[in-house]
């Protein structure tokens, strides 16, 4: 792959720039800038062999030629110890397999914090690629009475420098000019190519002085807000209020949206069904594909809402304060406040949560967080919880209009998952993953208004990923399940459900799950939900939809015939603890780079789920007798 390290003038166009890498430290506003430049024209990709994810997006240069922008992970330096930084170095040196060496680099720095961030610029410029240095957040710099002489800085660095604002779009024409100019490698006069962080840092201060850099004052609002949000009394109270508000919003705003989507899907299904003639094909399309995938798609509003709320907390800067408040509590279970952010995300989905553990430097802490994340009540459990609770628990107010019995049951399940996560963390941190206290080092960004465009792009990203899963894995399972319920055929007719293949599977595992109060239909649901939790709904829908005894499509009614109350409680507990998600297992395998951790996690969670469901079944049975 070393051939990429040499320049390839013959492949370059007149402008010379086809592929541009974008690098910058965390909190430099790099992602906002990147989104501003590429908009929706970007996709997520993984570098081969490593866990680091990156975006590739496209923009046009002034000659209307397509330029690919590679968004590299947020890094502080090019220290090859961390995986993120090693990936960045390899891409910039053209050593990343399957990726040509970029023709140029854009370094995004936070102009509010220039002296610290110039260290990264020095390291990147020293690599010898044509480089553009963008000093982002120019609007904040000006507002807070900071200043920098861009031309003097450009002279010191030997590269073009521009003061820009990703929020307002100010100065971004510099990027287009850079892409169209025939870029030449920088000619740094005295860049500290080698040298300790300390000496590079001293160089950065000197350069800052030469460029008359005046650091802006801390925004007064950040100080005022921190006086409240990190207050010893108000801080924790607001923290709790925020978490409660997040959940309230998911349920209060999410449910009506979900009903609207459900109505739309039902209507479309009925219309398609009316066009098709009666027969196997119609059965496959309506009962297999549409109902199967549709039962999962309806949860899109709730998932997007949760990602929206977490996104707002993250972009506004509150999430970092929440981590500070959570740190004391997290340290009691042997983790630190940084685990709080991934664990909070795990309430949406364990997959991005496990990816978010990369911010945890300590490897043992990181693995412990990965292992407990799936205990957090992810959104895929919501449909199961909602359905079972609605079927078995009558809605009555508990605390006036604020809390109903159903909401209380839901809250209880959230608490249950959380407690099991804490319990597991304690065990892990005092046994196999014992380590000295990991350092808690967290940068506190100033408070900012979240940008709708930036939030929107992330939601599109998540929504696509979710629908992709619904459209592939879950649809495939729906079709397999449909086939299993409609075969073996007798005289060209589908069999009665009790004679189908799926019944055989359900009956085969029935002895194992009978002690938990489950019948063979639930058994089939458990088998299919191994792929993803929410699939059990589709399965039970299919199973009951074609069950002659149950003419109604109302799943809740059907469930009440299948399960007793203790069985329902056991089912809820089982779902709270079991690892029924192939995507999570796959991402754990990727992030830990071994099959051992996902295998151990799967075994542990299955045992915990089985034993707890067994206990729940018998305890509930004892009390209602």
């Amino acid at each position, binding site marked *: 792959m070393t051939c990429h390290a040499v320049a390839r003038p013959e492949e370059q166009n007149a402008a010379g720039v086809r592929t541009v890498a974008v690098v910058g430290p965390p909190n430099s506003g790099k992602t906002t800038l990147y989104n501003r430049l590429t908009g929706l024209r970007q996709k997520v990709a993984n570098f081969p062999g490593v866990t680091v994810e990156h975006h590739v997006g496209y923009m046009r240069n002034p000659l209307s030629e397509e330029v690919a922008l590679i968004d590299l992970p947020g890094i502080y330096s090019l220290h090859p110890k961390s995986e993120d930084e090693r990936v960045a170095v390899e891409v910039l040196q053209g050593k990343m397999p399957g990726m040509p060496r970029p023709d140029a680099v854009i370094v995004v720095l936070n102009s509010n914090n220039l002296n610290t961030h110039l260290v990264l610029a020095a390291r990147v410029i020293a690599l010898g690629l044509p480089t553009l240095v963008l000093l982002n957040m120019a609007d904040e710099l000006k507002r807070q009475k900071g200043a920098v002489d861009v031309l003097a800085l450009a002279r010191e660095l030997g590269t073009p420098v521009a003061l820009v604002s990703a929020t307002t779009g100010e100065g971004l024409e510099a990027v287009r000019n850079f892409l169209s100019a025939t870029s030449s490698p920088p000619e740094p006069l005295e860049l500290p190519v080698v040298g300790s962080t300390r000496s590079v840092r001293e160089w950065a201060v000197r350069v800052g002085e030469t460029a008359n850099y005046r650091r802006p004052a801390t925004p007064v609002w950040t100080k005022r807000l921190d006086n409240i949000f990190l207050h010893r009394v108000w801080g924790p109270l607001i923290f709790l209020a925020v978490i409660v508000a997040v959940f309230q919003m998911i349920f209060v705003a999410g449910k009506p949206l979900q009903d609207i989507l459900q109505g739309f899907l039902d209507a479309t299904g009925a219309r398609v069904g009316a066009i098709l003639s009666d027969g196997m094909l119609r059965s496959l399309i309506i009962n297999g594909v549409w109902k199967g995938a549709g039962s999962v798609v309806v949860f899109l509003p709730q998932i997007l809402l949760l990602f929206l709320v977490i996104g707002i907390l993250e972009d506004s800067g509150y999430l970092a304060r929440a981590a500070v408040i959570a740190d004391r509590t997290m340290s009691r279970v042997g983790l630190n406040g940084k685990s709080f952010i991934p664990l909070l995300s795990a309430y949406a989905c364990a997959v991005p949560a496990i990816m978010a553990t990369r911010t945890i430097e300590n490897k043992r802490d990181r693995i412990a967080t990965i292992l407990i994340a799936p205990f957090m009540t992810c959104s895929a459990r919501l449909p199961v919880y909602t359905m079972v609770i609605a079927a078995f628990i009558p809605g009555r107010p508990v605390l006036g209009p604020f809390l109903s019995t159903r909401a209380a049951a839901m809250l209880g399940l959230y608490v249950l998952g959380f407690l099991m996560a804490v319990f597991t963390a304690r065990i892990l941190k005092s046994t196999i993953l014992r380590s000295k206290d990991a350092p808690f080092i967290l*940068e506190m960004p100033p408070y900012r208004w979240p940008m709708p465009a930036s939030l929107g792009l992330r939601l599109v990203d998540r929504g696509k990923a979710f629908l992709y899963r619904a459209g592939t894995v879950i649809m495939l399972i729906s079709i397999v399940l449909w086939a299993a319920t409609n075969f073996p055929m007798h005289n060209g007719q589908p069999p009665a459900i009790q004679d189908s293949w799926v019944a055989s599977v359900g009956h085969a595992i029935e002895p194992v799950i009978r002690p938990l109060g489950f019948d063979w239909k639930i058994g089939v649901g458990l088998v299919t939900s191994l792929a993803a939790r929410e699939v059990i709904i589709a399965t039970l829908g299919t199973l009951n939809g074609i069950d002659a005894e149950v003419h109604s499509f109302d799943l809740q009614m059907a469930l009440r015939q299948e399960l007793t109350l203790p069985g329902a409680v056991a089912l809820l507990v089982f779902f709270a603890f079991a690892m029924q998600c192939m995507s999570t297992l796959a991402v754990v395998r990727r992030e830990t780079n071994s099959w051992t951790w996902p295998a151990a996690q799967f075994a542990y969670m299955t045992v915990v789920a089985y034993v707890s469901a067994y206990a729940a079944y018998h305890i509930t049975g004892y009390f209602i007798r």
Partner: protein
Amino acid sequence: MIFNFIFGRRHRHAQGNGALADLQVGERGIVRELRLDHSIAEHLMNLGFVPGLEVSVERSGPGGDPRVYRVEGTEVALRRELSRYIEVSLVGAAAFGD
């Protein structure tokens, strides 16, 4: 890491040196040395905890731990445990305001 810090609180004003953990909220110090593992020290330096730079204690989190420090333009939250290993020399008296 079984480093027993010798600059106790009582001697701080006499010697002008101490641990970051010993500074009160509002006090400032010059970073002298990071007595930490290389990778942790490197990370702290990337955030601005470079020997020679001034660090101030901005505020303390609920319960007194972690605390938020400011180095140049960056605010960073650190646990007290870690800030015991960051050696600083005290600057002037407590700063009022900023």
